[in-house]
């Protein structure tokens, strides 16, 4: 188990480094000259060539790229991601302030995904090939095919404007999280339900399940006590991917529901061409995702004793 944890931690490092390189590269590739932007911020509207050159020198833009990366990474690790072009606020602090909202929203969506996805999948597998299975399968395909933003528009019209049950935007109370998180979870619920169904049916067809029924266990017991836990293995493996989808997709949902999370911050920054914010957003989301994936990997080891005991290869 310890071996497994250490290995997982070690594989995290190149991934985090890679993400930081991607984020850095995105910043480098962004149009516009950071020196001019910086001068503009200190109210130099029409800088001369010397002023620009001096600013470049000061900002380290003349150093070789790896050195620039090193400096940037050092700053980033200490939480300094630069300042917004727009209002000069520190980006790191702003992202950190907004992060809990996004994480709360994403975790809630993950919760819905697991709750409805697993229970739907179990229900489908239990009633395999019956009408209930077909209806739920239809619902699952519906959920994973519907465009999230389209669903969001309908949800707002129905629940906020017509029924007045839920607030349209902002995050004033827990009720504000309800609609965005469900919209965010929709497609993942469909995917999880289908995966769980398939995985459960596969496990129910395994030899050990047959042997379990030969001991006199009812079908229900075979499913709940034997097959279910094994069927979770592929589901949990993919939960990390779903969380990635949720975290990324939260930007769209945040923008529609006006939720002040990091996704909304990044999208607003795109409209105002505030590239450093986008860079910070990529770094933050990547790091959050990697950490959550790590947590899921550890959960995976709990479910699968083979990994816990042997540190087996995934």
């Amino acid at each position, binding site marked *: 188990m310890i071996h497994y944890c250490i290995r997982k931690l070690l594989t995290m490092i190149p991934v985090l480094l890679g993400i930081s390189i991607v984020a850095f590269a995105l910043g480098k590739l962004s149009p516009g000259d950071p020196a001019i932007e910086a001068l503009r911020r200190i109210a130099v509207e029409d800088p001369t060539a010397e002023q620009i050159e001096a600013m470049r020198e000061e900002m380290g833009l003349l150093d070789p790229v790896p050195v620039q990366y090193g400096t940037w990474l050092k700053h980033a690790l200490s939480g300094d991601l630069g300042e917004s072009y727009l209002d000069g606020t520190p980006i790191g602090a702003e992202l950190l302030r907004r992060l809990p909202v996004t994480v709360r929203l994403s975790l809630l969506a993950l919760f819905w995904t697991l709750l409805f996805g697993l229970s739907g999948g179990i229900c489908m597998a239990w009633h395999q090939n019956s009408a209930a299975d077909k209806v739920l399968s239809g619902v699952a395909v519906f959920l994973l095919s519907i465009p999230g933003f389209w669903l969001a528009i309908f949800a707002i019209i129905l629940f906020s404007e017509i029924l007045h049950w839920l607030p349209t935007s902002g995050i004033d109370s827990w009720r504000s999280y309800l609609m965005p998180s469900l919209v965010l979870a929709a497609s993942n619920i469909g995917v999880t339900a289908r995966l769980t169904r398939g995985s459960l049916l596969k496990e129910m067809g395994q030899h050990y399940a047959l*042997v379990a029924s030969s001991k006199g266990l009812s079908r229900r017991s075979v499913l709940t006590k034997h097959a279910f836990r094994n069927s979770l293995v592929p589901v949990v493996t993919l939960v990390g991917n779903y969380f990635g989808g949720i975290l990324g997709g939260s930007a769209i949902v945040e923008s529609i529901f006006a939720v002040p999370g990091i996704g909304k911050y990044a999208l607003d920054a795109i409209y105002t061409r505030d590239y450093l914010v986008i860079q910070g957003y990529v770094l933050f989301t990547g790091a959050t995702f990697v950490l959550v994936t790590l947590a899921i990997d550890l959960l995976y080891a709990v479910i699968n004793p083979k990994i816990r005991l042997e540190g087996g290869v995934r």
Partner: protein
Amino acid sequence: MGGEDIQIRHLTVKFPAREGWSVAVDDISLDLPSGQITGLVGESGSGKSVLGMSILQLLGASAKVEGECWYEGKNLYRAKEKELEKIRGGQIALIPQNPNQSLNPTMRLGRQLREVLRLHGNRTGEQGRQYVLDLLRELGMDRPEQIGRSYSFEMSGGMNQRVVSAMGLCGEPQWMIADEPTKGLDAVLRRQVYHVLKEISENRIRSMLLITHDLQLAWKLCGRICVLYSGVLVEQGGGSELFRNPLHPYTRGLFESLPAKGMHPIPAPVREKGEGCMFYNRCPLAKERCGRERPGEYQPEQGRIVRCFLYA
């Protein structure tokens, strides 16, 4: 010990195939007398495992089972699921083939064993634990406590074989069905399995159905032997008599192809399959009649039944 006989009448099992049905077991009637080991011998595709699994109704939803199987006054093929759950493991237990795949990889072995105790029988708590430990020790395991805490993938195939055997015994059943216990094992493991089965049959459960392709194992263990060929029961008789003097041409051919007997093969199909005997196309002694008509069951001597016109 002992329990009642199992009587199978006109069993036919079909599976859906690409076109129509494929028949795995074709109208077999068979008595499995209690108090002895009956061997069900045949090669792959002969339907021996299907027949064995049909007794416990574990063939899966796609199989179509026709016929009757009487045990303690009940027709198992028509029994309700609740009744079957009582019988499975409690009255008739299974020693499955492929022990490594027969155990749940994410559940400790001890729990899988105690599960049977909870379902059948009245041993609970410490008493049950002790019972399982004794059982494991009896089957030749040195440190049973440790095994209870392990998972199946930590154990060797031979160990898992003993665990599944113990699992079958936990419910103290009357009957045991052993499904291909030596499949894919090397000589050493095969001998171990033989000893486990012998131990069980001598001290715990006398009534057993041994499904196997392993003629030597059948010969060593079985009081009676039934030979299957493509879903048809071609010959039955007492173990030693059958081995000394096989009657059906297929049984003879099968024995001749044993490595110890010089591996003389059964000829490849020499003629078209007819409407009649299943073995017609490969039979060296086939007559014209065999291609037209199905042979019935003939009884050339006491206790032996052959489906072949040679004995009509």
